């Protein structure tokens, strides 16, 4: 696997930064080269928030991402701000519960994941939406192994919350698998795949 650049975005409080760390940790467990960076400061507290992960089989020198192979957007504001940074042929994953409108962008595969809905409805905790999203991401992209991701989640979440987070991961994973199959089968509007 050559260099893959993932950008996770959303609003403050959604656990976007933690998602990036978990993804990076998983990649590390997979013995891949990985670098994680994120937005900082007061700007990171309120509005748009972002975490970036570069994963590669080779040593990573330049640590930042310029164009994303994969953009995850968990808020409308974040999507609007970052959609332009997706590479041609890249993938966009949105939280279909928090994002309603997808701006025009060609040659991008769009996946919709109802992570917030799943988190609040199936798991009773909206706070784990980010982990649901990670499960989906893992399933949709295969950039990290499931074993590694589970290990990373366990290591990274607050003590006592391991179980619910693992369940969230699994829910996201299954949800995306299903939708993937469905999506592959179903018809695609304007190059998008349905995520719900």
């Amino acid at each position, binding site marked *: 696997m050559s260099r893959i650049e993932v950008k996770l975005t959303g609003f403050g409080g959604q656990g976007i930064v933690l998602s990036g760390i978990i993804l990076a940790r998983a990649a590390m467990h997979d013995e891949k080269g990985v670098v994680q960076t994120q937005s900082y400061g007061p700007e990171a507290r309120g509005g748009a928030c972002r975490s970036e992960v570069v994963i590669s089989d080779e040593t990573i020198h330049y640590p930042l991402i310029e164009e994303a192979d994969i953009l995850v957007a968990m808020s*409308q*504001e974040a999507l609007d701000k970052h959609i332009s940074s997706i590479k041609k042929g890249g993938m966009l994953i949105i939280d279909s519960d928090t994002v309603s409108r997808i701006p025009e962008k060609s040659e991008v595969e769009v996946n919709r994941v109802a992570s917030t809905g799943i988190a609040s409805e199936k798991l009773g905790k909206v706070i784990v939406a980010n982990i649901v999203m990670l499960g989906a991401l893992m399933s949709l992209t295969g950039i990290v192994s499931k074993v590694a991701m589970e290990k990373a989640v366990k290591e990274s979440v607050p003590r006592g919350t391991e179980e619910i987070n693992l369940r969230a991961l699994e829910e996201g994973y299954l949800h995306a698998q299903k939708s993937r199959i469905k999506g592959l089968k179903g018809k695609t509007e304007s190059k998008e795949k349905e995520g719900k």
Partner: protein
Amino acid sequence: MKKIYVDEDLCTGCGICIEFCPKKVLSYSSQRSLRGIYPAQVENLEACTLCRICEVYCPAFSIAVEGEKDE
């Protein structure tokens, strides 16, 4: 003319106006705003005494009271 405006674009759903309105005029909207939160909404305008406590306390400058107290 009495009116309360909530600017959904600015409101962060902190609940301060809702909590401290002495007449319980305000409540949380059930609709998530673009900020991803549930903003304040006017539920019971009639009860409002135009005391402006909501306006004075609002940290987002997102609520505005129209009309003056009679006395």
